[in-house]
């Protein structure tokens, strides 16, 4: 037991004395959360737009005012003729132009119909789509407000309700994703590197030639990174609750338990990688290519798995991060309990047992 505890202590020495790596390990989740939260977001905010108001009546003023008031748009230009439109787009000053025809209010009141033209810069189609949707929604709002005072015959309105994420925040999606990414990276890559480093140094030879039981070596190697991962989970959750306003709707203890389970799976994968690689570079490459990329691609966090070809969908089932991502989304965002995620939990658990069994079997008591 003393032997085992000192081994863990030694692993902590390694971890704590390598300041640079430690800094990266603790800094990585924080920066990733912040980068995804504030920089790499696909929400559209403060887009510059131009207004070409040929009518200048009460109705157009109200609509313009509402556009201006929304946080999506910044009106940077008031144009006076169609001819000015194209150059303004070409200079890249604006992404969207809203054009009101002459006699807007008059035709709206008299014929019950008035067109508004939305012209968008579609060089980035997604942004163009989003912007026109936002603008249409604001215009629809105006229309429905009018409806209350005047009776429009036969108007059909759709009422949308975005469940769990009414503001359609991107952070609801990437917090679980970043968690999967960080835990996978810290767990698998760092464990495998720390074991392979001993092989490179030749110290593994002495450890093997000593009376210590292999399982103790394995566990001692895992403990520090398990703790480190727990610290990372705490910092990610704190950041997402207090900085990004992503709530934890479900049970916190269940969430932590699932993180613990996933971390163990990542550690077991790291062990497996360490048994097939002989140098730190190989261990790192295998972890990055073999784990990190699939985590990003197949967990559903960047690209929806449902849109992939069937063979890739089948393949994605092998990626532990996919199940973890489902679980975290359900527990954290939807606020459901074990009754909805027990299947995914069991799958993760099965993967853990499977990986641990192989890696302990593959951990050799000899050099070959």
């Amino acid at each position: 037991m003393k032997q085992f505890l000192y081994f863990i202590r030694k692993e902590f020495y390694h971890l704590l004395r390598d300041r640079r790596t430690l800094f990266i390990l603790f800094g990585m989740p924080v920066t990733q959360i912040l980068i995804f939260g504030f920089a790499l977001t696909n929400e559209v905010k403060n887009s510059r737009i131009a207004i070409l108001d040929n009518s200048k009546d009460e109705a157009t003023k109200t609509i313009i005012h509402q556009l201006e008031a929304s946080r999506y748009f910044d009106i940077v230009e008031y144009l006076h003729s169609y001819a000015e439109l194209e150059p303004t787009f070409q200079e890249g000053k604006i992404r969207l132009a809203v054009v009101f025809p002459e006699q807007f209010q008059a035709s709206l009141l008299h014929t019950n119909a008035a067109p508004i033209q939305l012209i968008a810069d579609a060089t980035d189609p997604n942004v163009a789509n989003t912007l026109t949707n936002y603008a249409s929604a604001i215009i629809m709002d105006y229309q429905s407000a009018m409806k209350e005072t005047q009776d429009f015959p036969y108007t059909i309105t759709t009422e949308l309700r975005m469940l769990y994420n009414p503001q359609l925040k991107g952070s609801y999606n990437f917090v679980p994703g970043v968690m999967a990414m960080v835990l996978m990276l810290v767990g698998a890559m760092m464990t495998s590197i720390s074991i392979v480093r001993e092989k490179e140094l030749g110290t593994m030879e002495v450890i093997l030639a000593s009376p210590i039981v292999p399982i103790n070596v394995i566990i001692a190697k895992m403990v520090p990174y398990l703790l480190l991962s727990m610290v990372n989970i705490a910092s990610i959750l704190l950041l997402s609750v207090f900085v990004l306003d992503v709530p934890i709707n479900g049970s916190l203890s269940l969430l932590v338990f699932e993180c613990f389970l996933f971390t163990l799976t990542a550690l077991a994968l790291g062990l497996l990688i360490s048994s097939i690689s002989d140098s730190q570079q190989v261990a790192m490459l295998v972890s990055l290519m073999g784990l990190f990329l699939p985590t990003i691609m197949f967990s559903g966090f960047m690209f929806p798995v449902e849109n992939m070809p069937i063979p890739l969908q089948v393949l994605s089932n092998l990626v532990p991060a996919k199940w973890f991502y489902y679980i975290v989304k359900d527990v954290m965002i939807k606020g459901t309990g074990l009754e909805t995620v027990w299947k995914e939990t069991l799958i993760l658990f099965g993967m853990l047992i499977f990986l641990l069994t192989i890696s302990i079997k593959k951990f050799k008591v000899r050099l070959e």
Partner: protein
Amino acid sequence: MSTAVKVEHVFKTFQSGKTQIEALKDISFDVSKGELFGLIGPDGAGKTTLFRILTTLMIANKGNAWVDGLEVMGDYKEIRKRVGYMPGRFSLYQDLTVEENLSFFATLFNTSLEENYDLVKDIYVQIEPFKTRRAGALSGGMKQKLALSCALIHSPNVLFLDEPTTGVDAVSRQEFWELLRKLQLQGITIVVSTPYMDEASLCDRVALMQDGKIMDIDSPKGITGKFKKPLWAMSSADMYKLMHDLRADERIDTCYPFGQHHHITFKDDHQEVNPIENFLIDKGHKGLSIEKIEPTIEDCFMELMNR
């Protein structure tokens, strides 16, 4: 005297791509208890592989071996408690201090520095002033002493040292061998390998290894005693030309460069040296020195290699 290490007809092959490399070919030898036994041979002779088989880290393809009376295959767990091993590329934990390194290896073998302090005292007092220094900041000689302490800390019956003096300066090497001698007095059997032939004479017995085979096993005196031919050391101002001229001459059997001198044997054991000297003077060699010398282990090694 009882046997500490026994090796019987050990073969070991490695698969490298499609070719098979024979690392050990029919190795047999015994080491008595309390003996300082040297495995001498160049890189690639198979020394490390042999060490790994004896420390239970590898399994021989054929043959068997016993360490401290235990079979290396079946009793590997017991052997691991009883032997100390210092691998060739062993470099300690650079980010741990001297003391932490030592404590780690002590606890690894279920003991502590305090318990076996007497055993490593002689070595440890030399590195103790630096005990809070990280191992990475030690000099090469200090590192080796620390590594030796780590291998010794659990009071092993047999100590395996794979090239402990490689890359260490001459003074530290000498000190290291003195330490080994002291350990031997405490009854520890030591098997040590080295590519330095001059260290062979410091062992009780040596095995000369080349290409996975043992060419000869004997005491250092016994080995040099088998070198029957008269041996000459020659030097001149132009050593390269000297070797060239000597090797071209038909009276010369062998000529090898040995640092400051070339070591030469003649084809005829009764060859007079004067005609050779005159011949070299005629060739224009200046500052010529010719001296009859006693053969060293390296001379014997060269001779055995050429057989």
